[in-house]
């Protein structure tokens, strides 16, 4: 099999109008069940957060200085070094031929390890179903040469789908243009392969600090430290052996 180019999303929040067409298109295409039509009463955000039944989430942030509204359609980042995939004990989570990260629902046993492993808080267990769910980057559509439903539905091209290398080039040009135009705080998030997750397959152009959008400022794949964890666990196991042995040696009759 020839290696397919890695694909992903470039979500340019500077042109997001908060229409939530991405949320709706995702729900419809992927048959994601309703999880309550909540009026949160704090902004036009009524889905709150990414979760097992919200695979695109539009965040709304109202700011006074500068006086502006920030809107951002969040999604699974499809990390280069994906913690959810690393820690999954069943092999349910896997990397596809498109370089994306997908859950096989017929394998997932709902152990929930991927949930706290994700540095972005994306994947979650669906109540009543018991299994973990998240964005598949429309794996079924990719196979048929279609773009994901959210990107298809986005009316302003805030969500752009394509080959990752091309998207990164496009994003660099876009952020340079915005900065030249004097847009404050324009920056790319998750576009750098040198970051703590090896770069995101779905990255963003933001207009403020990541945490303002509910994103971690410096996410690191937790398994980066796994060798150190096992080393310390090994040392602790040896200490336990030594303690037990000493207890017997110390109480010889």
């Amino acid at each position, binding site marked *: 099999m020839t290696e397919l180019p890695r694909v992903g999303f470039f979500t340019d929040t500077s042109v997001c109008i908060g229409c939530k067409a991405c949320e709706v298109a995702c729900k419809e295409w992927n048959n994601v069940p309703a999880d309550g039509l909540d009026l949160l009463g704090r902004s036009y955000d009524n889905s709150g957060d990414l979760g097992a039944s919200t695979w695109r989430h539009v965040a709304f942030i109202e700011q006074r200085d500068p006086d502006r509204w920030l809107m951002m359609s969040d999604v699974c980042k499809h990390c280069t070094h994906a*913690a959810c995939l690393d820690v999954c004990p069943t092999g349910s989570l896997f990397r596809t031929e498109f370089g994306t990260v997908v859950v096989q629902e017929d394998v997932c046993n709902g152990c*929930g390890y991927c949930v706290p492993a994700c540095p972005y808080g994306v994947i979650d267990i669906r109540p009543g179903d018991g299994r973990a769910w998240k964005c598949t980057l429309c794996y079924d559509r990719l196979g048929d040469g279609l773009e994901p439903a959210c990107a298809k539905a986005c009316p302003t091209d805030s969500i752009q789908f394509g080959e990752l290398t091309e998207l990164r080039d496009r994003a660099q040009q876009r952020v340079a243009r915005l900065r030249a135009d004097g847009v404050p705080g324009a920056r790319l998030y998750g576009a750098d392969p040198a970051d703590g997750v090896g770069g995101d397959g779905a990255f963003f152009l933001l207009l403020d600090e990541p945490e303002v959008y509910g994103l971690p400022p410096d996410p690191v794949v937790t398994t980066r430290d796994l060798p150190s964890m096992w080393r310390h666990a090994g040392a602790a196991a040896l200490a336990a052996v030594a303690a037990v042995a000493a207890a017997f040696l110390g109480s010889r009759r």
Partner: protein
Amino acid sequence: MTEPAMTDQRPGSYYGQPIIKPPTWKNPDVPAYLFLGGLAGSSATLAALAELTGRPRLARAGQLAAAGAAAGGAGLLIHDLGRPARFLNMLRVLKPTSPLSMGSWLLATFGALAGAAATATVTGLLPRAAWLPKAGAAALGPLVMTYPAVLFADTAVPVWHEAHRELPFLFAGGALTSGAGLGLLAAPASEAGPARLLAVAGTGLELAAERRMTTRLGGLAEPYRQGRPARWMRLGQLLTAAGAAGAVAGRRNRLVAAVAGSALLAGALCTRFGVFEAGLASARDPKYTVDPQRARLAAAQSRYGHGEAATTTP
């Protein structure tokens, strides 16, 4: 038109919402498993040495506890699954990058060995061949005590991941005091000498690891130091220390030894609840995720002289 209210809008977070998802692991299933796993691991090791040194009742208690606690712990883990009927999928692959995969294989092997050892002890069948499962369970015991620390640390939960150096020692200490506590409860004073010493050693290890952990975490130790987790941790320390003292004091008094043993077991259980709930608390508040990452970025900035995060490129 009225302006939308800007409730909960505080800088540095999205309406104060958590950034990472708190674990969906059930309480008390998972902390109770941690306790039983630790008890099982240390009991198996203790039992093998007890048998080797001619302490049959201490050995028997350890073998039965190892098998019982391993079975009980596995039951709790299966109950914790979103799809318990699919628990065998845990053994579908052997995956070194997943501590839960490694742990499942470890626990399955250990459980089988401990079960065989206990069966041989109870039935008296195959007394010669029984050394194999006994020695096998004893050898795996220390890993059963400490691998859950890797399981917890290998997450984005701030107070677990950042404590990945100390958690294995904390868990080892609690596992040793659990095994010692059970030995004090079950064995006569004439055989309980090693359990008494182990109670003291395990207590020292646990208290030292706990202290080192909270010191090194600095401000991030807050979830261990306030609210319910703090009460669990303090109660755990108190019971453990009292149990160790009682173990030494009750050298000749079976009743004092039994009370001390119970205190050690209860103390280890409390500490597990404390660690578990501190993790949940640290996952729920975005500041515990954001602040250490910001500090890391600031440190990188002063080191390399450029300010932008690797994640955010200008």
